[in-house]
């Protein structure tokens, strides 16, 4: 459905997108993952014919973005980072206007407006001014606007940014339900979002495509090493954290132990280990040595760490560790 070949966007001083190539099949949901400023928005803008590429080519639904932009635009729905809403319009009026812009008319237009209002749960604000809507509603109206002409391809730039957790879940479910009929590319910098909604992931960093993979494979690659946060406290009010660290390092399979926080009788450590490591060993070791085990939980792997891992750079666990309290 979407074919991108050696797509490049260069500005006067920097290269925003650097020779990116990928393909997206029909009905797939693809997550476009990367930190802020990685080139996600620029790539999406090139796919939607908003920006012309410096070099390379992109075809959407069989049409080239440079050669036949009008044909491409008929087949895509686009939700930019900030929903493009006119504050002086009412929701229904706005969706009708966008529908007309996309070439709908008459009974078909009215039917689609009602349908997207229902689908994106904005029917109850149909007669409200867009300028008065809350962030969640604005985002959903933006999504409704993108699907009004039932496009083959949906391009969503950070569709869940700025929503509250409940709204984020609703939006994700909505996007998931749209997959199948539509080919969807969505950009985000939140990893769980990709895990929950997408089948395929494109990871982009500094304008370069770092990895293209299915979510399943990506998770496996990222979890090649596991890390666990352990908090230990001493029984009699003091704790020799060096001893604890030494004891933890002795457990079979542990590759590294990093002290994260130290209080008088309480210390927390990040324990890294190879795959297949049993947390039970760790818990037993702590308890049998006469310490209390306060906490034991898997350390969430930040996107940053996955990036570094995928690009082959060493993982610096201390990078986003909380500051030492003493």
């Amino acid at each position, binding site marked *: 459905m979407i074919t991108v070949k050696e797509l490049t966007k260069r500005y006067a001083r920097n290269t925003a997108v650097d020779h990116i190539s990928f393909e997206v099949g029909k009905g797939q949901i693809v997550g476009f993952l990367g930190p802020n400023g990685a080139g996600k928005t620029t790539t999406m803008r090139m796919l939607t*014919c908003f920006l012309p590429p410096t070099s390379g080519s992109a075809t959407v639904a069989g049409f080239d973005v440079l050669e036949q932009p009008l044909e491409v635009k008929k087949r895509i729905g686009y939700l930019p980072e900030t929903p*493009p809403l*006119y504050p*002086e319009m009412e929701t229904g009026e706005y969706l009708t206007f966008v529908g007309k*812009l996309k070439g709908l008319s008459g009974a078909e237009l009215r039917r689609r407006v009602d349908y997207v209002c229902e689908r994106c749960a904005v029917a109850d604000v149909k007669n409200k001014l867009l300028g008065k809507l809350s962030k969640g509603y604005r985002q959903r109206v933006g999504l409704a606007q993108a699907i009004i002409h039932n496009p083959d391809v949906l391009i969503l730039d950070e569709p869940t940014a700025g929503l509250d957790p409940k709204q984020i879940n609703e939006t994700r479910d909505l996007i998931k339900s749209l997959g199948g009929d539509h080919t969807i590319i969505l950009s985000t910098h939140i990893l769980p979002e990709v895990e929950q909604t997408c089948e395929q992931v494109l990871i982009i960093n500094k304008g370069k495509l770092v990895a293209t993979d299915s979510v399943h494979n990506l998770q496996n690659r990222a979890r090649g090493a596991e890390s666990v946060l352990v908090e230990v406290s001493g029984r009699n009010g003091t704790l020799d954290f060096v001893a604890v660290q030494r004891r933890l390092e002795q457990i079979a399979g542990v590759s590294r132990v990093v002290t994260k926080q130290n209080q008088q009788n309480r210390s927390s450590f990040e324990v890294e280990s190879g795959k297949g490591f049993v947390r039970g060993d760790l818990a037993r070791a702590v308890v049998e040595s006469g310490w209390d085990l306060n906490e034991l939980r898997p350390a969430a792997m930040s996107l940053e760490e996955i990036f570094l891992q995928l690009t082959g750079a060493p993982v610096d666990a201390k990078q986003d560790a909380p500051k030492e309290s003493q």
Partner: protein
Amino acid sequence: MRNTWIMWRKELNSYFVSPIAYFLLAMFAVVSGLFFWVYLRDFVEYGMEMQMRGQAIPMNINEQVIRPLLSTEGVIGLFLIPLITMRLFAEEKRSGTIELLATSPIRDSEVILGKWLAALTLYACMLLLAALNFAFLFKYGNPDWKPLAIGYLGLLLQAGALLAIGTFISSLTKNQIIAGAVTFGICLVLWVISAVGTFETSTWAQVLSYMSVLTHYEESFAKGVLDAKDAVYYVTLIFLGLFFTARSMESLRWRS
């Protein structure tokens, strides 16, 4: 064509849901009404004076009321046109809705034409409201309607040219205030350079005064004369203004 119509309706709608259209209509009606009263009072006083002296000076309501009032309306328009055009593109650029237009299957030229036509329609509404004054002249007198119609055509062409320039300026910035101020400055310059030609007869002065938007109105349309030279001047300005707007929209994509 259909897309131009859609844009036209959308723009006109946003003029009339905001107070700006009503403010402009009211301003234009009040100021032109005031001038109508002044010109008509002068006309009536002059007529009575002539009658008292027993002189039979030919009185012409077209020449003495309609013509100066139309010229004055043109000048008032000069001040209000920046307020009409400043939001056209600047607002879309600021709020990001330009992205919606740029990624919809609609040509830039259709967007520009729709917006410009909506601005022209608002101006026409202003002229129409002020035309109520002339309805009284037709009720109590018998002015010639043809010079009036040509005068109106001239005013529309003049406004069309300035609106096209304003549309272009608006497409250059995200800031409505800047768009409005620059447009106002340009309107003002295009107006006052006509004065240069009245004192100077050298070539450069003639060229400058030829460039003034008012000269082309005063020399033909105001007199009820339809001159191709002046019509072509306005149409050229309109075309240039809209052409540069299209280039500016295109450059927006290459730059941003």
